[in-house]
Every structure is written in structure tokens, then in C-alpha cells.
């Protein structure tokens, strides 16, 4: 019965919980800790860029991908119910992460943008639920689920690797 009080609380506050959570997170989001890094802007989802050839946006995940970052990412992945759609990387309601096929791009900046902005085919927008730092932890964990070797990125065309 260890967790029961938690669940009862969730149940009792269900009508308010969403609003409170998002309000708290939004406040937190305005004061990101120094380690959070910048939010990427103007993230391309596709490699077709009229007039020139560009590399991916240079922003890399400021929280890194060490064990601590991944563990925090895993916790958030479960808490925000990412696991309910993507499971342990094999996918379900949402696409798989293991297979290296990143529909909307598999770079740090692109995964960040997918989480924050949502995607057209069912990915919700979590921009007002997560702080920037939380989002970067999720990016680290989600990318760690890709165990294709080497990871392929559908958005960059055949042969181009993202790591």
C-alpha cells in the first residue's frame, strides 16, 4: 500500500492536477538552471533546403548522456507517460526509437523540437509541461534507446548518419 496515498491524491486532484502541474512547470521553465542550456530555434525537420546544403543545427544536448542524465531521462520518460506510447523503444501508439528510423529527425535539436512542439501524426506538444532541462534529459534518454548500428536518420536521406 506504499503508493496508494499517492494515487489517491492524484485521483482526488484529477480535475486540477493538469492545470497545477503545467503552471508549476511553466514557472520552473522561466528560470532554467544554468546547466539547462539554450532552447534550439528554427529546427529543420527535413534535409531539403532550397538554395544551399546545410549541416544539422549545431546545438548539442547540454545535459550530456552520462548515466546520471540517462537515469533522470528514464524517470521523466515514465512520469510523463512517454513509455505508454513508445514503450521501451519498440513503439506502439508512437513510433519505435530502437530502429534508427527518425521520422522527424534524430539529432538532439530535432528530438528536442519533437517533444516541445509535437508532430502532426499524433505526437502531443509537451512544451508547456516540461522545463527546458527536463526536455534535454528526455532527449538524452530517447536517443539512447536507438540501438541500431549506426543510427540511420530517415530525415537526412540514405546513408547520412546522425551519430
Amino acid at each position, binding site marked *: *500500500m*506504499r*503508493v*496508494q496515498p*499517492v*494515487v*489517491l491524491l*492524484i*485521483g*482526488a*486532484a*484529477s*480535475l486540477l*492536477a*493538469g492545470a497545477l*502541474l503545467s503552471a508549476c512547470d511553466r514557472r520552473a521553465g522561466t528560470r532554467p538552471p544554468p546547466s539547462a542550456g539554450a532552447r534550439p530555434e528554427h529546427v529543420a525537420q527535413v534535409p531539403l533546403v532550397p538554395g544551399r546544403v546545410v549541416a544539422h543545427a549545431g546545438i548539442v544536448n547540454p545535459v550530456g548522456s552520462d548515466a546520471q542524465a540517462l537515469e533522470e531521462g528514464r524517470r521523466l520518460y*515514465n*512520469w*510523463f*507517460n512517454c*513509455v*505508454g*506510447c513508445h*514503450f*521501451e*523503444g*519498440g*513503439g*506502439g*501508439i*508512437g*513510433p*519505435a526509437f*530502437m*530502429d534508427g*528510423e527518425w521520422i522527424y529527425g534524430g539529432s538532439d535539436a530535432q528530438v528536442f523540437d519533437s517533444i516541445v512542439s*509535437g508532430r*502532426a*501524426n*499524433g*505526437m*502531443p506538444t509537451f512544451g508547456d*509541461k516540461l522545463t527546458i532541462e527536463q526536455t534535454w534529459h528526455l532527449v538524452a534518454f530517447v536517443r539512447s534507446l536507438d*540501438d541500431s548500428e549506426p543510427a540511420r536518420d530517415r530525415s537526412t536521406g540514405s546513408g547520412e548518419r546522425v551519430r
Partner: protein
Amino acid sequence: MTQRQVAAFVLFAVCAAGCRDSQPGDTRAASVETATVGERRLAEPGEDDGQWLMPSKTHDATRFSRLTEITADNVSRLQHEWSFSTGVLQGHEAAPLVVGTTMYVVTPFPNILYALDLNPPGGRLKWKYEPAPMRAARGVACCDVVNRGAAYADGKIIYNTLDNQTVAVDAVTGQEVWTTRLGDINRGESMTMAPLVVKDKVLVGNSGGEFGVRGWLTALNVADGSIAWRAYSTGPDADVLIGPDFKPFYEQDRGVDLGVTSWPPEMWTIGGGAVWGWISYDPDLNLIYYGTGNPGPWNPDSRPGANKWTAGIFARDADTGMARWAYQWSPHDLYDYDGVNENVLLDLEWNGALRKVLVRPERNGFLYVLDRATGEVLSADPFVYTTVSTGVDLQTGRPMEVEEKKPGFGRVVHDICPAAPGGKDWQPSSWSPITGLLYIPHNNLCMDMEGVEANYIAGTPFVGARVVMKAGPGGHRGEFTAWDPVARKAAWKIKERFPAWSGALATAGDVVFYGTMDRWFKAVHARTGELLWQFQTGSGIVGQPISYRGPDGRQYIAVLSGVGGWAGGVVSGNLDPRDSTAALGFVGAMGDLPEYTTAGGTLHVFALPATGATP
């Protein structure tokens, strides 16, 4: 009178004399109206009118075709007549409809409705209707973006879109007549079920048992789509439409506001009980019957109590929606045993007397026979391998649960049988009054399950369980069983490599049809199960076969292929089979499906060769 008017008049006269007795589904009104869609040949009393106006064929949900041209003796000569690609890659679970000389096919998301003229050989596309549901709705569809079919009434084809609209389309012109939005994806709601039309109302329900929705059944007026009433599956009696006429059979179902008091505070508001399955109707008792889905979240430790009225069944007044009786198959469900399967309404000889019963192959693995007037359980026998209960106590109606198989927080329970998709999921069975057997496509699956914490965030999954499924005893994952509800045992069983996830179709020719996920459309002998004929389709079959009489007088069989649904998500969703927890754990049992089939929806139509046919 024009020829069309003559046909309508004679149809009416014939039906007035005999249709009520021969077709408990009360298709009379619909038969008359079909003159506007296409002319029908005449039906004799006791015969099939040759149409297929609702996925269950008739209101009693027998899915039985009285057409007799195709028989166990000649079905080996059945041939592929024509096909039609739907252009959609997700799981095709719908039944085609045939109204007059037009066939209607509704696809998975984006829920396109095709009207196909059956007059020219090979069919011809008359029109298509595109409701353009929100793409974001895909994010709240637990188990592929399926649709289980449409219903015909009053000159309209009526069906649900994934983004919670019920739409009515003019059956002749393809023009939208009305559309009504009934739910909200931001509460996790979607719609996948096939409506049932009863008199002047169309009944629809929501999906979203894995998203913490609050389940409901809603009656819309067929004429204009306005809402007549809505009955919730949880909450106070006023919301559940429980009043003075509510007379449940069992003691534990009597009391005030049990839909509130059988939950921790407020949990009923996000407690599930979605109404995504099948509805039946008995015109004599004027009652509708339908089941309610699993409680949320799956982790049962989160919701002590019986969690009424989830994982159960309601009998309601067809006009007012007021509940007459209710019963829970799985009170305080532990395993995602949605109670939404079909309720086949039969008049059976029971202990020497003819009884109005309801036969239910239930997800929890028991084949129930209920008195449909009172809700009394007359019998409940396991039709699959079961480890989680030892039977159903007929004094209380409750399953006798096995203590060591109860899952909870941080505890992994192994070999839970049947698995979450149950002994049988949504895939509807078919009853033959000739053989007295119910033909049941179903699963042979077990699972390991661990309860984990569930965090309710509206519009995201609310499950709280880590599940891995696997084959049941024998290693095959599906079965097709002919069940004798009076003898209370199987007459015969066919093993299938994968879950038998298609509907069944029994015909008066002693032939039973069903499809498999490894791409076979099969005809078997209704009395023995002997394989009589099979045809290989391009993709696996999870659709519902139907039979109709074409404008040329011949008997046809039609089915949609196109693998997907919860069981087929590993293919239709391009999931990674290395994650055995993927798709709520179903991928654990289906990792080899991609070796047997790819995705893609196609309508297939079959008939005996035109020469030598005996219409």
C-alpha cells in the same frame, strides 16, 4: 408504379408477412428504404434479403447468412471475383455493408467511406466521402487507428471517426447529411466502434480505456444527429441513467451511486469503462445490450473497489437509455479484460424450457449464457486455457480468482492466462441456427505483468503496467472454436499460428468463413471444422467477412484484408519486435508477424463460377 416502386412495394408486403419471424434483427424498415439505393430482388419469407445493413447482420448479432448457393459441397470451387484497394495501410477491422446494389467500405483512419456499385462486373467506385479527421487523434488511439464499420438507416450510412465525430452520409449521393462531435482527444477519447441503429436512434460509444477516459454510450437521433441521451459507465446514478427500473440480478450490484462508491474518491472520473465494442437489440423486450471496457489504470492497486460499472454489461431501455440491469464480468478487473465483446441474442432450449438468453464469449476466458431479461448467469464455462480463475460462482456471478495471479505494484506475475487481449478480443463470433454452434475466432495468449506507477495526464496513456505477452499452451497464438452453448463444450477447434483476429461468418450452406493474420481467407465445414477452401490475400486479415446476393442473383462473400489492430501493430505500426513490451506487450507474442505479412488494405469479393451456379 415504376419498377423501383414495385420492388419496394412487394418487398414491404413480403416483409410484413414474414421478416419479423425470420429475421429477428427487424430489418423491415431498412429493406423498404433500399429501393432508393438500388433495386432488390424479392426475399421470400424465411430467406435472407441478400443485404448486409449492419456489421452484425441483424440486431441479435448472429452474423448468419441465410443464403444457400455456396455450400460445404461446392465451396471448393469458390473463386476470387474482384478486389479494390483502400489505399490505407492500417488495420482493416470493418465489415463492408451491402445496401441494395451498393457496397460501402469504411477504412481505418483517415476513415474514408467508399461506395462501390455492384452492378458492373468487378464493381465500380461511385463516390468516396472523406471526413478528414484530425491527424492528432492518432496519438490517443491505443491499438492502431482501426474502425469497425458503419451502419445503414433511413437512407444514410452512419459511422464514427477516430477524432470523435459521428457522421451520416447520404447513401445515394455521398453528401454529408450531419456530423456531431461527441468527445475530445485532449481527454484521451477516440472512436473506433461500429454504431448500431435502433428505431430512430443511432447508438455510439467512446474508446480510450488506456487514456483514463470516462466511458459512455450516446444515442443520437438518426434524423439530424442531435443527442437524445448519454449514459456514462461510471459516476452517480443520474449520469449512468440508473433509476427506479434498475433491477440487477445480483446483490452486489444493488445500491445507490455504486459508480462512485466502488472507487477511491474521484477516480471514477478517469476510470475507463469505454464503450468501444458491440451492441445488440431485442425488439420484444425493447432492450439494448452492450459491454463496458476495462477500468483505468490497468494497475489494480490504484483503484481498490469493484470499479463499477467497468468490465461489465448493461441492459437498457432502447428508447430512454435507462438501465434495466447490469452485471460485471470482471469486478475490479486485474488484467485489462474489457467487457465489450458481442452479445448474441438467442432463444435456446435450456433445461427443458425455451429461454431468452444472451451468449457471450467473454474476454476473461468464459463463455457465458445469461438470461437476457434478468441478467442471471445461467452458465459460464472456460473456452480457453485459464490460470487466473477457477470458474464463475453462479450464486454470486463472480469469477473465482487465483490469489497468486493478482498483479500489483512492483510485483511481476508470470503466466497470466488469458493475456490482456483475453481469451477473445473484439473479433465477433457468428451463430448458426442450423448447427446450433457459435463460431468463435479467438486468442491463445498468456502474459507476464508488473504493476508500475500510473500518472494521469489528460490525453496521454494511463496504464501503469509493464506487460509481455506470449503464446499459450501449444505454442499457437490463435484458435477458431465451434462452441455448443447448450452442451457447454466445444464441438471442434482449429489452431492458428496467430490470434484469430478476424470476424466469423456462418452461412446456411454449412460453411463458416474467417481470415487469418498470416494471409489466409478460409472456408471450413460448419459441422466438423474441416478446411474446405482457402485463398491467400496480400496482407493479413483482421476484418469481418459478410455474404450478400449480388444484382446478378449470385451469392457473394466479401472481406477486407489489411493486417493491423492491436495484434497486428508490429506490422501496421512498423514497431520494433526486439522490444517485447511494445504495443502494451502484444509485440512480445507477435515478433514474427512481419515474416508472414506486410500492411495494406484491400477488399476481396468471392463467388462460385457464374456458369453452373444455382441461384
